[in-house]
């Protein structure tokens, strides 16, 4: 885990910076916000910014690798953190850990996710090329989402094709069930 030693030594004296950073990391996704407590006004702003960045990196790396108590404690001990401060850090870390995990898991590319499906049953009577068609068919619309933007995939299928589709989806569901029982 990367830790900027110099900056963290300074954090050690300003325990409130850490708390603010923990909260800040989980609430602001892309905006870099400095903690603005009044106690920190007299601190050199550049140093404050460096400390804040270092602390954020440390916290995110700890969540990323699912670091346990001993790993975090030993890291902080190397930086001459007192036992009391380690305890404060660790309890705050535990409080926000789930939220940070969710945040990190949502970053990244993946194929569009299917959320919902709507359907229409229609009866095809005739069209301009062929008369007397007299066939029922389905219009299926899959509602998919990809990184916030939604898209609908529309297609038609006959009754047999829809049965085929549902059969395949059921096979997939069965294999999920079997895998979860192993």
């Amino acid at each position, binding site marked *: 885990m990367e830790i900027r030693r110099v900056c963290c030594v300074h954090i050690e004296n300003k325990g409130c910076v850490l708390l603010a950073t923990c909260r800040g990391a989980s609430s602001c996704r892309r905006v870099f916000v400095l903690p603005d407590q009044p106690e920190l006004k007299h601190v050199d702003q550049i140093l404050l910014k460096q400390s804040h960045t270092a602390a954020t990196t440390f916290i995110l790396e700890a969540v990323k690798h699912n670091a346990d108590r001993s790993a975090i404690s030993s890291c902080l001990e190397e930086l001459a953190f007192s036992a009391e401060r380690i305890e404060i850090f660790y309890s705050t870390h535990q409080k926000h850990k789930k939220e940070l*995990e969710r945040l990190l898991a949502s970053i990244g590319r993946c194929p569009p996710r299917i959320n919902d499906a709507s359907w229409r049953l229609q009866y095809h009577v005739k069209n301009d090329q*062929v008369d007397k068609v*007299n066939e029922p068919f389905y219009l299926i619309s899959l509602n998919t989402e990809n990184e916030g933007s939604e898209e609908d995939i529309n297609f*038609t299928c006959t009754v047999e094709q829809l049965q085929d589709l549902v059969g395949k989806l059921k096979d997939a569901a069965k294999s999920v069930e079997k895998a979860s029982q192993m």
Partner: protein
Amino acid sequence: MLLVLSEDHKEHLSFLPKVDSAVVGEFGRIALEFLRRGTSPKIYEGAARKLSVPVETVQHGVEGLMFLMTESSKHMISEVDFLDSVLVLGFGEELNQILLQLYLQHHAQIRSILSQLPSNLPAYHNLEWRLDVQLASRPLRQQVVPMVTMRLLLVGGGAGGHSSRVLQTDPSSLLHLISTLEAALATMKSSHARRIFRNIK
């Protein structure tokens, strides 16, 4: 129902009685080949040279024949109606029989070709799936996230040919999807649907 042939159409077909029945049979074969594969001007020129008539006459004759066949197949007219419609043209009995045979032998095929024309929405072709478990990603290690990855193959829809989309879903969405689509299938068997299917013919 009877086919109503326009004056232009009748004029184009009037070329047919002037040639032998063998030639009419040949024209019929050419017409069907054109319906299947598309027209080719060289064949018109070849036939025109052999029969010593202008290319246009041959072209109109073949096109008239094609139109007669597609209209008859489109409306699925019976033998009797077909003969009655063709009677209007004033052809001999033999020619009428040749045309009828042409229609009877190929109308199913012509209908299936015609039904491929109006596809403006993509149609389902196939679905491939697999079960994955995500273990880690760049921002977060040590995950256990099951997901079903699918490839939906579609046909047509303006782009022509096959298109495929890669999609993902989690197990609970998958179950929701299955129950929604099963409900869709169940409506086919409802009394309302059955009544409509029975009565619209």
